[in-house]
C-alpha cells in the first residue's frame, strides 16, 4: 500500500508538468496583447511596454518562456501578475473562500444526498422515493446558472433568508451558494445511494444476515448500508477535488472572491503566470483527492488490494 501511494504521488509530477505546459501554451496562443490591454484607454509609452515585455519574458518563444517559468518555480517563485502582485498572494487570499464553499457544498451533498438516497432505496416505490426521483431529475436538468439566480431571487430577495452576495456574514454567506453548487452532485449522490441500497437489499449476504436472526437494524445498517455506501464515498471524495478547483459560475453569481473568480479574471487579462499557477494547483487537488479515494476504496472494500 505504501509503495502504491508513493508511486502514485511520483506520477503526479509528469501530470502536473504536462498540465502546466498545456495551460501555458493556451494562454500564449490567446489573441491580443496583454501589456497593451493593461493601459486601457490611455496607451502606455512604448518604452514602458518594451520594459514590461522584457520583464515578463513575453518576447521569448513559448518553450523558453515555459522553461524560465519552471526555473522560477523550482526556486519557489510562482511569479507575479502584470501589476507586480505575487501569484502566491492571490492564491493565499482566494483559496480560503473556495475551501469554505467546498466544505459547505460537500456537507450538503453528502448529508442530504445520502439520507435521501438511503430512505428512497429502503422504501422503493414509496411516495418518498418518487419525490426523490422527480426532484433529482428536475435539479439535474436545470443549468446551474439558472438555479443560482432562482435561489438568489427566492431565498435571498423574496424570503430574505440568506445574503445575496459577498462573504460579509462568514460561514452563513456560504450556505446558499453552497447549496446551489452542491445541487447537481446532491442529486447524483441521492440517486447513486438509492440504486446501491436497493441493489444491496436483494444481495445474498443480506438474506444470510436475516437467516442468522440478526436484528433488523443490524441487517440494514451493518450488512446493507456499509456495502452500499462504498461507491457513494468514492464519488463524494472525488468531488472534493473537483469543487476545490473553484466554481466560476457560482462564485460569479454570488460575488465570492474565490479561486474560480480569480481564474476567470486572469484568463480575461491573459495573466499567464496567474492562470498556470492556479490551474496547476487545481490539477494537483484533483489528482490528490482521486488518490485519497483510491486508498479509501481499499480500506472500505477488502477485496481491493494495491500492490
Amino acid at each position, binding site marked *: 500500500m505504501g509503495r502504491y501511494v508513493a508511486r502514485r504521488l511520483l506520477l503526479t509530477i509528469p501530470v502536473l508538468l504536462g498540465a502546466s505546459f498545456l495551460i501555458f501554451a493556451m494562454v500564449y496562443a490567446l489573441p491580443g496583447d496583454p501589456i497593451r490591454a493593461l493601459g486601457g484607454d490611455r496607451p502606455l509609452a512604448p518604452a514602458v511596454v518594451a520594459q514590461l515585455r522584457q520583464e515578463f519574458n513575453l518576447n521569448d518563444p513559448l518553450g523558453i518562456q515555459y522553461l524560465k517559468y519552471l526555473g522560477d518555480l523550482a526556486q519557489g517563485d510562482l511569479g507575479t501578475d502584470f501589476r507586480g502582485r505575487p501569484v502566491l498572494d492571490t492564491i493565499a487570499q482566494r483559496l480560503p473562500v473556495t475551501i469554505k464553499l467546498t466544505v459547505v457544498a460537500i456537507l450538503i451533498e453528502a448529508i442530504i444526498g445520502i439520507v435521501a438516497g438511503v430512505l428512497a432505496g429502503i422504501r422503493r416505490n414509496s411516495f418518498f422515493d418518487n419525490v426523490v426521483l422527480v426532484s433529482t431529475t428536475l435539479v439535474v436538468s436545470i443549468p446551474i446558472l439558472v438555479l443560482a439566480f432562482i435561489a438568489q431571487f427566492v431565498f435571498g430577495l423574496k424570503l430574505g433568508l440568506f445574503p445575496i452576495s459577498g462573504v460579509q456574514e462568514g460561514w452563513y454567506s456560504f450556505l446558499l451558494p453552497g447549496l446551489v453548487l452542491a445541487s447537481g452532485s446532491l442529486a447524483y449522490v441521492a440517486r447513486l445511494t438509492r440504486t446501491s441500497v436497493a441493489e444491496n437489499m436483494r444481495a445474498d449476504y443480506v438474506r444470510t444476515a*436475516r*437467516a442468522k436472526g440478526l436484528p433488523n437494524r443490524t441487517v440494514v445498517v451493518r450488512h446493507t448500508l456499509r456495502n452500499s455506501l462504498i461507491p457513494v464515498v468514492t464519488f463524494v471524495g472525488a468531488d472534493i477535488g473537483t469543487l476545490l478547483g473553484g466554481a466560476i459560475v457560482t462564485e460569479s453569481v454570488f460575488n465570492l472572491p474565490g479561486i474560480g473568480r480569480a481564474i476567470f479574471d486572469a484568463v480575461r487579462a491573459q495573466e499567464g503566470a496567474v492562470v498556470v499557477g492556479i490551474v496547476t494547483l487545481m490539477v494537483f487537488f484533483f489528482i490528490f483527492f482521486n488518490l485519497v479515494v483510491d486508498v479509501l476504496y481499499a480500506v472500505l472494500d477488502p*477485496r481491493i488490494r494495491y500492490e
Partner: protein
Amino acid sequence: MSTASMSVPSGSARGASAPVLEVQDLRVQFRTGSGLVNAVNGVSYTVSEGETVAILGESGSGKSVSAQAIMGILDMPPAEITSGRIMFEGRDLLTASAEEQRKVRGPGISMIFQDALSSLNPVYSVGFQIGEMFRAHRGTSRKDAKKLAIELMDRVRIPAAAQRVDDYPHQFSGGMRQRVMIAMAIALDPRILIADEPTTALDVTVQAQVMDLLKDLQRDTGMGLVLITHDLGVVNEVADNVAVMYAGRIVERGTVDDVFGNPAHPYTEGLMASIPMLEAKGGRLQPIGGQPPNLSSIPSGCPFHPRCPKRRLGADAPPGRHCAEDVPPLRLVVPGREAACHYSEEVLGV
C-alpha cells in the same frame, strides 16, 4: 437430547422421535407483473431430531421457496404465504411476532445456502461474521465472540483457524467458504439445519467432504437436517427420508431406499430412469419428456399429467381418477410410503 420413543411418523426409518419441525399445508404465492405464481402449493413434512429429510426436486419445484418460508426470510411482497402452519417446538412460526421469529433463526433453525461466496458479506472478516451469531443472540463481547469463532472454524475443519479468522471470504476456496457458512449456521446449536443445495457450487471431491462434515456434525449434535437438492446421489448417500417435489407439491414421500428402489409416482420413476448407469455404458439416457410446468398456469388435475407416460384421460379413466381433471391427493399407498398419483399401486406394482 431427548430420544424418547414416540409414535413413529409415517415414512421415518432411523432416529425416529417427536418431530421438531412440522410443516403443514404450506402455500406460497408470488405476485409478479405477469400474474400470480404459485410456487408452493400445500407442502407438508416433518423433521425429527437427528433425522435427515431430503427435499428433492428440479429448479422451480418450490423446494427453496418453502425453505425460505420456514426461515421467514422470503421477501414479502412479492411473496405471500397464503396458508399453512410451520410448527417449531409446538409453536406456529407463521403467527409468531417478527421478534419471536427472529429469535428462532440461529438457535432454533438455521440455514446454509448454495453460493457461499455471495452469501457471505465481502467486507467483513469470516471471524466477525461467525461471531455475530453470539453477539446478536447471546450478547457475547466482540473478543469472546472471536474466540468462539475460532473454535467453530476448528470444528468445521478449517486448517489454521486462528490465523485465518481475520481473513475475508474472497481469500478462501469454495469448499472452505461453505465450511464458514456451516460454522455460522451451527454456532448456536440449532435444532434444525436447512441446507439449500449446499454442495451444488462445489466440485465433486469437495462435495463429499462437505457432506461428510454435515453428517458428522449432525451425529454430534442430534440436529435435524433438511437437505434441499436436485442431486439424486447426495440424497442416496446421506438422507433417511426423501420428499420429491413437483410444481410446488410433494408428489412422493418415503424412506430413501424405498423411494429410490421402487418409486410409487411416475415422476420419481422418470427421475430414476434418467440416472446414468455405469452398467448401461454406451446406452442412451432416458429423459422425462416435456418441460416443467409454468408456475403461473399449473396444469389442471395432476400437474404432471402432460408429461406422464401412465396418464389416463377421457374414457380410459375411472370416475374421480381422471388425470387431467382430478387432483391426486398425497395419500398412503403402502405403509411408510405416500404418493400423489391416482395409479400409484400400478406404478409400484402391488
